[in-house]
């Protein structure tokens, strides 16, 4: 038995170290390979072992980009919607102001332009504030009108502000007539089951008098509060008859008070004939968009 026989363990150890050394040399040599060779090795790994992981990353990135695109499109749609809504409101207001300007030119200085403010508090329905007052020549009972016709009346006048009520108020009354003067009556509000169902009624028409459907109804000037000739609405079917001596008609109002933002208010220097202010064509324009309810 040889005294210094090689130990198998030692042999294995040397072999391990030898392999480790070779591997270390290979690792260092990887650093000094040409760029092309390095790319080839990288390519082999990328298309084999790493492929599933890079695929997952790619799909995640595509999904993320789609998510971002959807978010961007949603933001864009929201912005466009907002812009359209704002634009529609501005166009509407612009048109009202333009019509009011034309009306103001026809009406003259006795009508003062004003902006309508709605308090929006409980119990203040049918009421509004205007930013003109006694200093501007307003008085209690001044008519409030818009491009399409009568809106309401001033009830309280302060120095630079006034409080008015529109035709949806329970106390609202106005003497009225068929535009050609064939019949006279009193226009008042008829309370619906809910506010949006409030309507106007032309009362006090003689039973034997026939009023054609769609006849234009204007203020009659009776009572001296409202000038004669302010458009109110258009007759519909018969609402009610009292015995055989009186009947009343539904009215389709020309003005929706709830959407009114700018008005003209009559001052003290009242001209009791407003017929020339609302010629037939302006009423015809109002006819194109008749109002059925009067919530405000």
């Amino acid at each position, binding site marked *: 038995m040889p005294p210094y026989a090689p130990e198998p363990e030692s042999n294995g150890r040397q072999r391990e170290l030898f392999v480790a050394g070779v591997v270390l040399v290979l690792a260092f040599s990887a650093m000094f390979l040409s760029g092309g060779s390095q790319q080839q090795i990288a390519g082999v790994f990328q298309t084999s072992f*790493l492929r599933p992981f890079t695929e997952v990353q790619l799909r995640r990135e595509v999904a993320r980009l789609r998510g971002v695109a959807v978010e961007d499109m949603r933001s864009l749609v929201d912005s466009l919607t907002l812009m359209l809504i704002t634009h529609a409101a501005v166009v509407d207001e612009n048109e009202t102001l333009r019509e009011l300007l034309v009306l103001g030119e026809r009406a003259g200085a006795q009508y003062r332009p004003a902006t309508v403010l709605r308090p929006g508090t409980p119990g203040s329905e049918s009421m509004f504030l205007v930013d003109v007052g006694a200093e501007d020549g307003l008085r209690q009972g001044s008519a409030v009108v818009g491009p399409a016709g009568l809106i309401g009346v001033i009830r309280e006048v302060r120095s630079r502000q006034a409080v008015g009520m529109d035709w949806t108020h329970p106390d609202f009354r106005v003497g009225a007539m068929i535009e050609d003067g064939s019949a006279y009556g009193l226009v008042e509000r008829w309370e619906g089951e809910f506010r949006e169902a409030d309507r106007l009624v032309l009362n006090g028409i003689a039973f034997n008098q026939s009023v054609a459907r769609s006849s234009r109804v204007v203020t009659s000037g009776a009572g001296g509060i409202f000038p004669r000739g302010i458009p109110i609405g258009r007759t519909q079917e018969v609402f009610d008859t009292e015995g055989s001596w009186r009947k009343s008609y539904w009215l389709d109002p020309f003005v929706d008070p709830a959407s009114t933002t700018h008005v003209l208010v009559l001052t003290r220097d009242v001209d009791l004939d407003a017929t020339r202010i609302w010629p037939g064509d302006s009423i015809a324009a109002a006819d194109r968009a008749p109002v059925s309810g009067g919530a405000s």
Partner: protein
Amino acid sequence: MSSSVSARVWLVVALLATLHLLLHVSFSMDGGAPDLLTLGLLLASREIGTGRAASLGLFWGLLEDALSVLSFGANSVAMTILGIGGALTRDLFVGDSRFFLVSYVFIGKWTRDLFHWIAVDSGQRQPFVEEVLVDGGIASLYLVPVGVLVAMVTGLGRDK
């Protein structure tokens, strides 16, 4: 090393490598995910012998180099040295204590970052303090609890 232990080691190594690539490559977590390749190499190198540890290190290094645009080979060198070093610690430390495991994982990861920093071309690497001391230190600290957890679950890193 028995065949059952060997199979377990390679299974753990494969799982850690897959998880590492999923977190770092597929989910682009970078520093947010621990360096499980290094952890797998550190734990396995004490079980599989110096030659295999070096080979495994070279393989892991080439995998990482395949994804790095610059300094091809730096990861290969760092991981190979780490594999050899990890295997050699078997002769120096029995390594049956928790303290050894914590130190081994911390120093191993930090050493891997140090060697990588040295191997990277000087014009392309970050300052030593930033890359090795700060980032490397934080990554090493992060890897320690993960390493302890993996060692507890798999039984690797204990003297048999």
